[in-house]
């Protein structure tokens, strides 16, 4: 019920922003569409902690700035490597641990790794990721496990 409620608010908000019309007729159409979607989602049984992960939202909001900062730093590193005449790359493929318990947490961690330039998650298994890194510095960043800890913190006891 909590998830269906959050889904209702998110979908209504999206309808309002996307349409930009605030007359009763179009808002009525929007509400009807949202309710129809909720009925379908309810019948499919996917309005759960994975389909509408509202519990992780507050913790994700504190994780996002840190991730953006990491992305910015990694961007600068990769730009420096690409533009330097010698191109000091040392590509490596290695495995790292993931301590997340749910698919949602693993998805967040794998996407966070891929989102930071210089590292790409190539293979995802339970508890074990295969990561391709462009430089040793980028590889060490993942191996330090700080991102893993933070994502596990975001995931919480879902």
């Amino acid at each position, binding site marked *: 019920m909590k998830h269906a409620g959050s889904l209702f608010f998110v979908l209504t908000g999206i309808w309002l922003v996307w349409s930009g019309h605030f007359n009763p007729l179009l808002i009525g159409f929007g509400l009807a569409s949202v309710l129809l979607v909720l009925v379908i989602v309810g019948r499919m049984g996917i309005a759960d902690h994975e389909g509408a992960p509202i519990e992780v939202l507050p913790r994700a909001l504190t994780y996002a700035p840190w991730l953006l900062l990491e992305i910015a730093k990694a*961007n600068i590193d990769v730009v420096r490597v690409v533009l330097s005449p010698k191109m000091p790359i040392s590509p490596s493929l290695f495995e790292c641990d993931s301590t997340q318990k749910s698919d949602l947490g693993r998805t967040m961690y794998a996407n966070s790794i*891929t*989102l930071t330039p210089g590292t790409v998650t*190539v293979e995802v298994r339970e508890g074990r990721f295969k990561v*391709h890194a462009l430089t040793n510095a980028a590889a060490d960043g993942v191996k330090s496990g700080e991102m893993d800890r933070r994502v596990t913190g975001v995931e919480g006891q879902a």
Partner: protein
Amino acid sequence: MEMALDILSWLLIACGALLGMVGGIGLIRLPDFYCRLHAAGVTDTGGATLFLTGLMLQSGLSLITFKLLAILFFLLVTSPTATHALASAALSDGPEPLLDGSRAKRRGGGSSRN
């Protein structure tokens, strides 16, 4: 005030465009498929974020700002998924990744041929 906002916005757009270009340069310069993914990552994250933030400053506080924010959000969620799909497909049935060890070997092989 408006002037400063305009300058900041164009600065962001210019930096975003520059990062997009650097991603393109990396795509050409880097040696193999897996390394090129990292260059594409620069365009996907840094380039898109700076560019869209610059556009947000141009649009002021309106519905367009929220739409741009949504575009940025979806871009940041979907692009690593696409990158992962590409990388995973390539690893299972594609070119072997060029690793540091094999690169040194190949370089040695190249010089002996010359």
